[in-house]
């Protein structure tokens, strides 16, 4: 911006507005950085302080992802859905992505199975977390580290 202040007075009159407009649309570098506060906030909001159990939820992610702009992620609740207890919601998080929450999935007893696959883009090698909330309030968790060949967030 300093360079702009040296420009002749006539041009300077028109410049501030243009400079401001441009500034407002330029991304600060921080938006591309990992967001650990947001990651913790989403985790806490989903679990609501409930005790989590690290079994019962299957998370299938490749250990080495050759294409970071389309990493296959599969989640499946291993417990059967019954009239008393079924999986209501699953969230998938990529802990070092600029937006850690990759997606939410909602399941209903009408489906009878809680299972889904998606493809995510990953900004760097990191850990994928999946959390499932059962109707009874139990939280099932799973995580898997994934190494990516390059960043997928610039694509």
């Amino acid at each position, binding site marked *: 911006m300093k360079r702009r202040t040296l420009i002749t007075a006539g041009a300077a009159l028109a410049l501030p507005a243009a400079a401001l407009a*441009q500034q407002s*649309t*330029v*991304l600060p570098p921080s*938006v*591309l950085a990992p967001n650990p506060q947001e990651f913790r906030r989403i985790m806490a909001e989903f679990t609501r302080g409930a005790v989590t159990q690290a079994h019962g939820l299957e998370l299938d992610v490749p250990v080495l992802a050759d294409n970071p*702009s*389309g*990493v296959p992620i*599969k989640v499946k609740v291993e417990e059967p859905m019954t009239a008393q207890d079924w999986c209501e919601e699953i969230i998938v998080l*990529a802990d070092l*992505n*600029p*937006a*850690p*929450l*990759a*997606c*939410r*999935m*909602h*399941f*209903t007893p*009408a*489906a*009878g*199975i809680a*299972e*889904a*696959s*998606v*493809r*995510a*883009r*990953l900004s760097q090698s990191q850990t994928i977390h999946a959390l499932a909330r059962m109707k009874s309030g139990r939280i099932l968790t799973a995580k898997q580290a994934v190494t990516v060949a390059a960043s*997928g*967030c*610039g*694509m």
Partner: protein
Amino acid sequence: MDQKPPRIWISNTKPKKGETLRVRAQIEHIMESGLRTDAAGQVRPRHIVTRFEARLGQALLFAWEPGISIAQDPYIEFAFLARDSGELQLRWQDDTGQSVSASRTIAVA
């Protein structure tokens, strides 16, 4: 938001009762994250699919809320148990309010 019709694969459209049906579906969508800039340095505004729903008749089977970390041309696979015959309706909606839908007939034997 979509020129081409969604690509849909269903493991079996004439299942036996109780059989597990698997559905894979994909649409074309830019899934612009809002984190990219164009050649002039301007941010490309966020433009993503925000909701996907699968219904059999009136009953909601599965819903999906993608975020910006979901890949371009979003792909979704889900499963359900074949209990009733009916029209499987798939609907995608993006953050500009545009939507695309498709349906397939499921005939339980």
